[in-house]
């Protein structure tokens, strides 16, 4: 009872703080200093039509490298936590008699999975032009893998292939970043390739390359998480 009361008090205090913030909030009528810098200079300096992408891949590219590293760590820890007891349980006979996937699901996944993969690739290749990018495209790639996992729960996906894809993508990301130090202004500088015409597919220097590899890496990481979780469920 006391516990409930404490929770209620904490939430009430937070609600009071939030109400204060909400009622005192005055919406900006113009961009602040940082936003104005990006709005004025992103198109000229980076050449990406999508300014959010310009910030993520170029201006704050180092943060994105850290973010991808966090995701890699997450996937690695999940593999570590879940695979250990998988090996313990594999000695037990797999006597699970589950009904197979339905006809609709199987046929539908054969039709949809390639289309979803293609759509994911489209999203991350056009990340510098349209709302989208590596992280969104990678999540879409992983959703195709999820569909395949639902269709064929027993089939084992190749962990080695996924790990290889992820490692190569991460390595390319870092190598392009280091090339930026040698050939252009600094780490992850995208101007080692010509920035081109604003709004063209082949523009914005190395941003399409970096974002495509981020997409592959994120897709591989999400897929490996999903596959690990699905494999533990099988036992």
């Amino acid at each position, binding site marked *: 009872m006391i516990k409930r009361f404490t929770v209620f008090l904490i939430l009430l205090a*937070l609600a009071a703080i939030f109400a204060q913030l*909400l009622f005192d909030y005055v919406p900006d009528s113009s961009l602040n200093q940082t936003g104005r810098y990006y709005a004025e200079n992103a198109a000229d300096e980076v050449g990406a039509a*999508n300014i959010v992408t310009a*910030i993520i891949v170029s201006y704050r590219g180092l943060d994105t490298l850290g973010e991808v590293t966090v995701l890699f760590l*997450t996937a690695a820890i999940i593999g570590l936590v879940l695979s250990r007891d998988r090996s313990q349980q594999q000695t037990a006979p797999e006597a699970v008699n589950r009904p197979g996937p339905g006809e609709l699901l199987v046929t539908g996944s054969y039709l949809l999975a390639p289309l979803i993969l293609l759509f994911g690739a489209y999203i991350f290749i056009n990340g510098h032009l349209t*709302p989208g990018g590596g992280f969104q495209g990678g999540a879409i790639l992983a959703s195709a893998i999820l569909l395949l996992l639902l269709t064929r729960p027993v089939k084992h996906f190749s962990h080695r292939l996924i790990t290889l894809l992820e490692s190569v993508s991460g390595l390319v990301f870092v190598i392009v970043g280091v090339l930026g130090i040698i050939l252009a202004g600094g780490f992850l500088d995208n101007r080692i390739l010509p920035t081109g015409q*604003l709004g063209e597919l082949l523009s914005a220097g190395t941003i399409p390359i970096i974002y495509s590899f981020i997409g592959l890496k994120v897709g591989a990481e999400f897929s490996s998480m999903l596959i690990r979780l699905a494999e533990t469920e099988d036992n």
Partner: protein
Amino acid sequence: MEHIALATGFLLILIGLYGALTQRDILRMIVAFTIANTGVNLVLVAVGYIRGRSAPIINDNLPAAEATARMIDPLPQALVLTAIVIGVGITALMLAYAYKLYILRGSLDISKIKELKW
């Protein structure tokens, strides 16, 4: 408009925290945390919104010369993109640990786990 989005975000944070503090089942706590996470993202995006302006993508409708006067703040959106991705990672980690805990204890009730209780 901004106030509606902000209020919804704050409400989601409160609902999420309420769930995380009162539920005993670990899976429900994880769901509550993701709700609170969504609320934080909503608040951040709402702060970057400026009334009557368009998305920060330069095209025929928004030439680069007019970008400063006609686009919303791109920085919170970049921040929230990062936050969403990290949120997925955190959720996946929590689920993996919950599974491990279930294997070890045979239960997902947090009141039965007393090692760290003081």
